[in-house]
């Protein structure tokens, strides 16, 4: 397979793009622009005809594992199936070709989707106000912490509220976001089931608390046993509870963060609502907050201007072509003038394409369907746990929510096989590796999240493969993978002597 670089395919004079001739009277560039601003030559981009571009990228693509082609039980990432109807929706010119600064009256269909999304996310979280602006989960954390800071500023407690508490098994973005938002972070210990160590929690909880950040279900896939107590204690101290929504896939329609004590949360629509991960992005990070915090949310948000005759519920009773007529006055508007708002954390409205896919997902499932998503995600995870625990111990016990964390420490001690070896060997069998070494609180952690979009047959085959692998010659595993294009890259060398781009010839 071709692993030449794009630049290796270049020859001067080749080209793919052909532009039209200029159809307006043309002046020399030098006559239009100051000499100092004009480049002597265009950038040294590669010169490659279209067929080679296609072949280059398609051949590269086959070196990736992906949800569409492989089981991808990557814990904490919710690698569920990405529905094709959602992709079709996002590609519709009536959405894809909208300019972000068009007047509201020209984008009522778009604003309907976004308004409804605000409503849906609020309903699912039990937190009544929503901003769709943040571009990713961590961006949502950051925006929400700015909201908290604005709130404390408003009530005159900025100097007092300096601490953000987060459990030691939390996602790394939590403390990083807190620091960016101007807080100090304090780590709270957790117990072997991933639950907060309440003793340590109370030790660190004091009047300086601004926000307690918690992931629930937590990163070992357990619903925090002391959730209510924690929230009450934080609130009693005048602090706010932030819910990292990475694991919402376990609890849709089952329990709501707003109901179990959260004041703020973000969503990862690319996890929970099936947005494709795109090899690392784009995602989105909408946030929901309590009524009290609503006025601090980023601007703009979508508001309803007046009672609308347009239901937008897509009942089969509508004509397939003729929409309800455009009303003279727009139904939806963007509210920019919100004096308490933290402002904006990015340009334009947000990652609309991701939100649109999430909208399709929620509309495809409805209330019953969303609950069934979580039921089946939890069922699949527990079923796989019931199979895997006979192969690798699962310290958290016999039950989990949407994912679980097995430990390879016994295997390592007895046979010298590390979690990483298992992960790499699984690639040889056509499975993407589970997440390993996270959370750090479980030794030789192997974190598995099957999601609801995998079959019992796939789970059975995966468990069987895992069993087979643990019995293999350790040497075979140390050198795994064997069937992939490359094996065990030297990451230390990469970091020590960074080669971050192709040298110009």
């Amino acid at each position: 397979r071709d692993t030449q670089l794009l630049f290796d395919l270049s020859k001067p004079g080749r080209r793919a793009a052909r532009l039209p001739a200029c159809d307006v009277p043309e002046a020399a560039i030098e006559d239009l622009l100051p000499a100092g601003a004009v480049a002597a030559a265009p950038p040294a981009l590669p010169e490659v005809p279209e067929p080679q571009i296609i072949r280059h990228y398609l051949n590269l693509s086959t070196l990736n594992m992906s949800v569409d082609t492989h089981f991808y039980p990557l814990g904490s990432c919710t690698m569920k199936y990405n529905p094709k109807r959602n992709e079709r929706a996002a590609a519709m010119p009536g959405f894809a070709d909208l300019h972000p600064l068009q007047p509201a009256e020209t984008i009522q269909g778009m604003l309907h989707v976004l308004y409804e999304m605000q409503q849906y996310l609020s309903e699912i979280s039990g937190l009544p106000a929503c901003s769709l602006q943040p571009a990713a989960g961590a961006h949502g954390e950051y925006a929400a912490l700015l909201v908290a800071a604005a709130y404390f500023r408003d009530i005159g407690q900025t100097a007092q509220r300096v601490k953000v508490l987060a459990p030691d098994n939390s996602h790394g973005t939590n403390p990083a976001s807190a620091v960016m938002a101007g807080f100090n972070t304090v780590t709270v210990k957790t117990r072997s089931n991933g639950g907060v160590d309440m003793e340590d929690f109370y030790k660190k909880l004091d009047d300086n608390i601004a926000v307690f950040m918690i992931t629930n279900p937590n990163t070992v896939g357990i619903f925090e046993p002391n959730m209510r107590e924690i929230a009450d204690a934080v609130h009693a101290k005048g602090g706010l509870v932030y819910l990292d929504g990475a694991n919402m896939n376990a609890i849709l329609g089952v329990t709501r963060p707003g109901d179990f004590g959260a004041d703020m949360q973000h969503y990862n629509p690319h996890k929970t609502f099936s947005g494709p991960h795109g090899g690392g992005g784009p995602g989105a990070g909408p946030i929901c907050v309590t009524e009290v915090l609503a006025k601090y949310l980023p601007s703009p948000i979508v508001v309803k201007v007046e009672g609308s005759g347009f239901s937008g519920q897509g009942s089969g009773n509508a004509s397939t072509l003729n929409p309800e007529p455009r009303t003279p006055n727009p139904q939806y508007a963007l509210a920019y003038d919100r004096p308490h708002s933290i402002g904006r954390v990015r340009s334009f409205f947000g990652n609309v394409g991701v939100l649109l896919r999430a909208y399709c997902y929620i509309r495809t499932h409805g209330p019953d369907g969303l609950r069934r998503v979580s039921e089946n995600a939890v069922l699949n995870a527990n079923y796989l746990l019931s199979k895997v625990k006979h192969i690798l111990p699962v310290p958290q016990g016999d039950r989990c929510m949407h994912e679980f964390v097995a430990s390879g420490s016994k295997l390592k001690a007895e046979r010298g096989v590390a979690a990483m070896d298992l992960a790499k060997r699984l690639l040889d069998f056509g499975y993407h590796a589970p997440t390993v070494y996270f959370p750090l609180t479980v030794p030789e952690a192997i974190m598995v999240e099957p999601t609801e979009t995998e079959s019992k047959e796939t789970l059975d085959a995966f468990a069987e493969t895992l069993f087979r692998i643990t019995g293999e010659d350790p040497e075979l595993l140390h050198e795994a993978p064997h069937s992939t294009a490359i094996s065990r890259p030297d990451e230390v060398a990469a970091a020590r002597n960074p080669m971050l781009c192709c040298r110009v010839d």
Partner: protein
Amino acid sequence: MPYHYNTPEDQAEMLASIGAASIDELFAPIPDALQLKRPLNLPPALSEMELDQHLRQLTALNDYAGTKVCFLGGGSYDHFVPSVCDVIGSRSEFYTSYTPYQAEASQGNLQVMFEYQSLITRLTGLDVANSSLYDGASAAAEAVLMALHAGGSRNKVIAPSTLHPEYRQTIATYFENIDAELVTLDCPAGVLDADALAAAIDDKTAAVILQQPNFFGCIEDADRIAAVAKGAGALLISVFDPISLGILKRPADYGASIAVAEGHTLGTPMSYGGPYLGIMSCDNSLVRRMPGRIVGETTDRRGKKCYVLTMQTREQHIRRDKATSNVCTNQALFAVRASVYLAQAGPQGLKETANLCLQKTRYLAEQLCQNERFSQAFDAPTFKEVVIRDAENNVDGLLREAIDAGYLAGLPLGRWYPELSDCFLVAVTEKRTKADIDGLVKSLTAKSVRQPAHV
């Protein structure tokens, strides 16, 4: 459910293996009092066909750059998206894969990201690039934070008012709770006056951030501004337009140390503003302060050249509260599209595209300003956008009428610049034909009572 497998028989078998009596039992760890005892209040499920019809009804309520001729700019542009970008961007193995932490299962993504980083450095002339950030505005904010960190005790950043207002707003938000000050310099001439900058800059200034071409489409005197910044020991951060680099000097050429851009224009449609592509490139000296993922070349255990995510010690999942930034997600899929776009354009294609924008913008301005009602607000040369002043000071009415005539004619500037409430910003990409422009001019001038100046 179209995406689930578990039949009742399967569920029974699975529960037996688990040792649970029901699925509900699996939720027992959630205290009863915290469980939702009612269905979510959401509309009922739609079939694929109903969803499709529903969305078609909604899009019928939108005007867009396929029903109206689009002259809107201001950071998002109706550039042509070549079909190859769609083909590669919709390839399953690219769009349904995860962040390439597992290098052996991700060499496709990793090599493409490495190539993307290389392409971006060729655009900017700088040493390195990351594998993308969220969008242009947040990339600008991250660049400013980098500069502050690099600047030690320097805590001031200077931005001219010609920097995109939403970029300035984003930076202001990022500054709210940290010890940093954003100083905005007014630019009545539509470009930053180097002398004004020299007056404002001091030894607390960590960086000057300059958009080139600026928000008004005008060409800044980047060389002089860079010299002023450098003279004061501040870094120059460039906010560039990737398309413009077909003609304009690269950020490194005028002395920028960090260059950021909105990259959706490279092969991704406008999509109501997102997801977009935040481009970031910088000097070697700043690489370990750069946020976001970075791909590096290395060799595997058999000595084969390959690619990995590298320098992860900068990142939050290793460093936690000591990370350079909280950025985790990037926009890999749009970095793929941008790579494909740049590959298909090549140097000549990029130059021709930039030239068409330049020429057509000039033509539009000339044609429109033959009518007395309209004039260019600023003297500075412009690239693909131009600010037009309406002598009748009726921008909103004018633009509304233009919509009815079939044109998204421009952005009213009063929202961000009260002093320019009689002005609007018009963008002309390579997609606009002479007939489009003539049509717009005709439409905007049709109701003008005044006669062309030269008649």
